[in-house]
């Protein structure tokens, strides 16, 4: 009986492996693209049968057409992906050319990845798997919306696109509110910042190439970036703030009511740093160091409050990611006070309580 069971398990093993064959991550550059422009598709095959492949991986696609039809056992070179690093592969194409389908008929791309002979495959990227590559629908931005962005969860190391309709942006709100002045500009640039303008890339003469948006036609402009590269700081991105203008700022484009544009990231999991108090044991005549390491937050996101008897000191952390510190002088405020403990709290700018603790003071022995 045991022998039969063992045989059954051994027979099922390959299928158990196939159950965990989904493509780990798919993204495109630019994040928003048209079917008749060049785009690079990125696939992370970690966890699939193709994870260990280093030689060649091929795209097998059947929607919106099946360009390599009939060649399952011997994929064509045009479908070959390029190895990026680790388990990440890419293929660059103009979808309308690759699929030989008119651009206005391409709304989504489905397929899977395979070895040349098809002996190893990944699961599909398709609607039923929830990971089809969907092209942006420009209907709303052309007709009703002023702006949009994708992906909605803004990741620092992944492509990110912002769209604006320059014909619908606002200017001169203080005098005679005007819509569409920016659409008459020969170029549109973005003046923007991360997380309430904490890190800013200015629209200035030195940054014109970097801040310039791509004109997609119909007054639609697009900014493409990888945020951590664009802003030069690897911080968790909760929002992107922006205003648009031409290169000389003579023509402006704001959001409704001339407000700054605000692109709020959703679903960002901000890793809070781990905290420690240095040293472990302290007296009222010492310096206390608050230590925060390995978090996504910026040092200026972290606020401390230390209560020492009747004295309360507050401030922000300092330092460079991932090591932030705050130095607290216990000596001066406690010189004329006798207390046996202090109280330390650390909060984010949004008020989240990260640390709330008492610290005992060791009596001084001379």
């Amino acid at each position, binding site marked *: 009986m045991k022998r039969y069971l063992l045989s059954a398990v051994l027979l099922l093993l390959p299928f158990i492996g196939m159950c965990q064959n989904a493509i780990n991550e798919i993204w495109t550059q630019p994040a928003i693209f048209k079917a008749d422009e060049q785009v690079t598709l990125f696939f992370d095959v970690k966890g699939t049968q193709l994870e260990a492949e280093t030689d060649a991986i091929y795209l097998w696609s059947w929607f919106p057409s099946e360009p390599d039809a009939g060649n399952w056992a011997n994929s064509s070179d045009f479908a070959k992906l390029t190895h990026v690093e680790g388990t990440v592969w890419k293929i660059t194409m103009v979808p309308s050319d690759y699929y030989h389908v008119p651009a206005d008929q391409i709304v989504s791309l489905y397929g899977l990845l395979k070895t040349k002979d098809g002996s190893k495959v990944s699961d599909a990227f398709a609607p039923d798997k929830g990971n089809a590559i969907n092209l942006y629908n420009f209907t709303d931005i052309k007709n009703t919306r002023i702006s949009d962005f994708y992906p909605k969860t803004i990741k620092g190391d992944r492509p990110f696109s912002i769209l604006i309709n320059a014909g619908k942006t606002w200017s001169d709100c203080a005098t005679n509110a005007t819509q569409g002045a920016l659409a008459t500009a020969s170029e549109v640039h973005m003046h923007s910042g991360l997380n309430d303008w904490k890190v800013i890339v200015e629209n200035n003469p030195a940054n014109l190439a970097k801040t310039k948006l791509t004109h997609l036609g119909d007054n639609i402009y697009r900014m493409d970036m990888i945020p951590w590269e664009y802003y030069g700081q690897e911080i968790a991105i909760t929002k992107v703030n922006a205003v648009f203008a031409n290169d000389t700022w003579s023509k402006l484009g704001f959001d409704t009511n001339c407000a700054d544009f605000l692109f709020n990231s959703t679903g960002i999991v901000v890793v809070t740093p781990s905290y*420690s108090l*240095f*040293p*472990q*044991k*302290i*007296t009222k*005549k*010492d*310096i206390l*160091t608050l*230590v925060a390491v390995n978090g996504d937050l910026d040092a200026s996101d972290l606020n401390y409050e230390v209560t020492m008897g009747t004295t309360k000191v507050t401030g922000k952390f300092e330092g460079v990611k991932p090591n932030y*510190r705050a*130095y607290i*002088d*216990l*000596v*001066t405020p406690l*010189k004329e006070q006798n207390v046996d403990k202090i109280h330390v709290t650390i909060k984010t700018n949004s008020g989240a309580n990260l640390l709330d603790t008492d610290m005992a003071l*060791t*009596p*001084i*022995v*001379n």
Partner: protein
Amino acid sequence: MKTKSQHALFGCLMFLALATTTSSCEKKDDGSYVAPITRYEKVQGQWQLTGLNQTDELAKSTGGSLTQVNLYGKFNFKDMKITFNVDAENNPTSYSVSGNAPELFTKEGFWQMDAAFTTGKTAKIFLYSDEAKTQKIDELEVTTMPGATTNMDLRLVRTSAGTPFLSYQFSLKPVE
């Protein structure tokens, strides 16, 4: 019968004997007596802080990941100066700390050392609040005694039940 050469040899020997006798009676000049330099002479004067590290002795002994923090650039420690005064006989009198840095040890009072001369152990500076030196307020170890080097390192140690749990290392250079 003595030959001429025997006469010459005899003359030389007599001269040598006379010269040796004369020189052996001459008094040797070793110079006047100079007392050895005391630790007080080495420590006295004004010292400028050039470095300050705070060490968590507990973390150090238990293999903690963070054992030391550099405080030199914080709280005006860069402006801190310590002056150890002595009297005409180079005996320690008062001391003072200038600048606005936090008072890790009492900033003025009187000082004394554990011994005026080297004992083979780490030298200690005792700080007192009174001139009679009966009320000890703090204690500093001299971990680098000026001499071979012009600089001096002092260590302030916090203890609990005799066990060190925290220390500060002050690096100092003489103020010219």
